[in-house]
C-alpha cells in the first residue's frame, strides 16, 4: 500500500481480542499490500493482553485503532469500524488470518473489470504451524449466487470478500444476532444485490488453532435456521454437517464430530467413507492434511510461497 491520501481505495477492518502475536502477523499482511492505497482500522474488543501496546508500537500512519472498552461481538465490532471507514472499498481480515501481498490489488482489478460490487478469492486453511491443511479453490460467480442460500461456498471465513462501501450501505451490515455464520448471511444479501467477481489465486490463509472462536454447535444450528427463516432456501445439510464435523474434530470433540459425519451421511454426503478414514487417521495421531503436496500443485505452490513470508513471527515493537 502507498501512503493514504484524502480518500483511499480500501479500508481494511480487523476486529481483534487478546491475540497480539497473531494480530501483528495479520496486520503486516494487510499493511504490505502492493499497489493499493489503504487504511487499516483495528477494532480492539477490550483486549486485556498487550494488544494496546502492540498497536501503539506499530508506527504507520495508515493504521487507526478503535478501542471498545467492553467487547460487543465481532459483527458489531466490524460494523462500527465500517461506519468510520473512508475507503471506496471495505475489506475484512480476522486477527488470526493472513493475506497474500497482492490480494487487494488483484481483487480490485477483477471487480473493476467485471463491474462487480463485491469480489472474493481462493483460500487455504493452515494449522497453527502454518502448514497447509486444505486448498479451497473459489467457486465461480454463477455457482456462488446459485448455492449461497444452501451453504457458504466462499472460502476464508470473513477474511476474504471485499465490498464497495456504497453496496455495503445498501445491503446492510453484518447481522449481530449471528455468531460464526454472520459472514455467510452477509454473502446471501450481497449475492441478491449483485453477482460477485472472483480471483482464482489462493489469496487468503485461514488459520485453525486452539483458540478459534469457541465452537458452539447449537449456536451455529440456531444461526442456520435463522438464515433459512430470513432468506428462504433449503440448507444443504450434507455440506453443513460435514463442515460442522470438521469443526468438531478441530476443537478436539471427536465423538461430536463422528455424530456430525453421521448426519452428513444421512443427508447424502458422498465423502463419508473418505472422511471416516481421515477420522481414524486423526485418532491414531496422523495429521489431517486434505491436500496434495504443494510441489505437485502450482496453485498451492503459489500459496506456500507467500505464506513463507507472512508466517515469519513478529515481536511487539518490531517494525512491520
Amino acid at each position, binding site marked *: 500500500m502507498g501512503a493514504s491520501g484524502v480518500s483511499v481505495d480500501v479500508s481494511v477492518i480487523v476486529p481483534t481480542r487478546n491475540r497480539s502475536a497473531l494480530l501483528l502477523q495479520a496486520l503486516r499482511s494487510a499493511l504490505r499490500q502492493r499497489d493499493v492505497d489503504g487504511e487499516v482500522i483495528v477494532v480492539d474488543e477490550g483486549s486485556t493482553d498487550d494488544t494496546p501496546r502492540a498497536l501503539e508500537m506499530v508506527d504507520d500512519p495508515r493504521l487507526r485503532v478503535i*478501542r471498545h472498552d467492553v467487547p460487543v461481538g465481532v459483527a458489531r465490532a466490524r460494523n*462500527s469500524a465500517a461506519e468510520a471507514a473512508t475507503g471506496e472499498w471495505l475489506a475484512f481480515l480476522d486477527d488470526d488470518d493472513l493475506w497474500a501481498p497482492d490480494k487487494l490489488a488483484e481483487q480490485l482489478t477483477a471487480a473493476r473489470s467485471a463491474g462487480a460490487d463485491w469480489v472474493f478469492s481462493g483460500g487455504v486453511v493452515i494449522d497453527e504451524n502454518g502448514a497447509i491443511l486444505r486448498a479451497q479453490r473459489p467457486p465461480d460467480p454463477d455457482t456462488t449466487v446459485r448455492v449461497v442460500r444452501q451453504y457458504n461456498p466462499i472460502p476464508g471465513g470473513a477474511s476474504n470478500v471485499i465490498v464497495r462501501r456504497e453496496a455495503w450501505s445498501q445491503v446492510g451490515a453484518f447481522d449481530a444476532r449471528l455468531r460464526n455464520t454472520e459472514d455467510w448471511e452477509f454473502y446471501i444479501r450481497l449475492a441478491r444485490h449483485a453477482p460477485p467477481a472472483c480471483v482464482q489465486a489462493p489469496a487468503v490463509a485461514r488459520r485453525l488453532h486452539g483458540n478459534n472462536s469457541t465452537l458452539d454447535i447449537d449456536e451455529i444450528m440456531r444461526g442456520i435456521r435463522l438464515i433459512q427463516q430470513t432468506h428462504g432456501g433449503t440448507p444443504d445439510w450434507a455440506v453443513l454437517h460435514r463442515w460442522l464435523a470438521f469443526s468438531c474434530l478441530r476443537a478436539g470433540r471427536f465423538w461430536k464430530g463422528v455424530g456430525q459425519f453421521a448426519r452428513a451421511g444421512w443427508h447424502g454426503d458422498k465423502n463419508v467413507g473418505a472422511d471416516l478414514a481421515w477420522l481414524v487417521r486423526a485418532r491414531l495421531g496422523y495429521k489431517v492434511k486434505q491436500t496434495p503436496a504443494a510441489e505437485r500443485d502450482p496453485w498451492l505452490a503459489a500459496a506456500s510461497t507467500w505464506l513463507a513470508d507472512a508466517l515469519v513471527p513478529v515481536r511487539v515493537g518490531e517494525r512491520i
Partner: protein
Amino acid sequence: MSDIDVSVVVPTRNRSGFLRQALASVLRQEGVILELIVVDEASTDDTAEVLASIRDPRLRILRHSVAVGVAAARNAGAATAQGEWLAFIDDDDVWAPGKLALQIAAAAAARAEWVYTGAVTIGANGEIVYGQPPMPPVEVVEALPRYNAIPGGCSNVIVRRGTWERCGPFETQLRNTEDWEMWIRLAKTGLPACVARPLVGYRVHATNASLNIEQIIAGTHAIEQRHHTTADWGRLHRWMGESCLRRGQRKAALGQYFKAAMRGEVRGVASDLWQVVRRRAGLANHSPVPRNAWLDDAAHWLREIDRTGPASAGGTTSPGNITSPPLTLTL
C-alpha cells in the same frame, strides 16, 4: 435478545467538562433500561480520565485513535447498539430526567417509529437563553423539507433501531446539517410522535462545532438536490446571522441578515436588529427570557442538572458570549 430499551450514543471530543454533565443527565434517566455508548473522538484532554471515573456498568466506550467526524462517530456508536430505541446526545447538551421514558410512552401511544420533544437553548452555565414549544408532528413533517423544524440539534430525536437500520445512518459528507437531513429521511417513514415539554437543554457556547457558513450552505444545497426540495433560505440566513452575532462576528452577521432580508425575511430581520439596537442602547431587560409556564418546566429540571456538578473546568468556555441575550430564532 437484549432487554435494553434505549441505546444512547454520545460522540465527544475534548470537552470533558460539559461531557460529565451530559453523561450524568443520561445516567439519571428514569424508567428506562439503557446502555450509554460514548464515542471518544481521539480526545487529548482529560476525557479518558473523566470516563474512567464514571463507574457505571451501563457505560461503554469506543475510542477512535483518529477523529472521524461527528456523523461517522455517531454511526460507529449506533452500529454497536443493542437497544430497541436509539438516542443521540451531543457532549455539550443535557436531558431532563424523564426525557427518554416520556418519548417512548408517546411513541407507543402514537405507534410512531420516531419521537421528538421540545428543547431550550442554554448557555455555558445552564441558564436558559431561548425556548419555544415544538411544532406538532404534522407541521414538522410538512416543514422539514424547507428547514430543520426540530429543535435541539442532534440531542432530541429518538428512533426505533429497526427503522434506523433501514433509513440510517447519518450522511457523513454533511457538516452541521447531517441531523436535518436525517430527520427528512425519517419523516418519509411516517409521522413522528411528540412530547411537547422542554426535555432537552441545547447548549450554545464559544466552542460549539464551529459555524462554517460555507459548509452549511453547501450542505443545504446537497439536501435540496438529494430530496428534491427548496430550502427556506431566508430563515437559514437569518439563523446564520444570529449565530454569527452570538460569536461576535458582526460583519458576517450583517451580511447574513442582508441575505435573509433579500430572501423575504424583512420583518424577522428588522425585529432581530431592533433587539440588537435595544440591547446596545441598554434598553433591553437583562433577565434574558420572559418567563412562561413552559420555560419554567425547563428551568425546574435544569436547576437539578446544575446541582449535579459544574460543567466548567476544562477551560471550554470563554466569557463574554455567554450572557448575550436571546434572539428569537431557530433554524
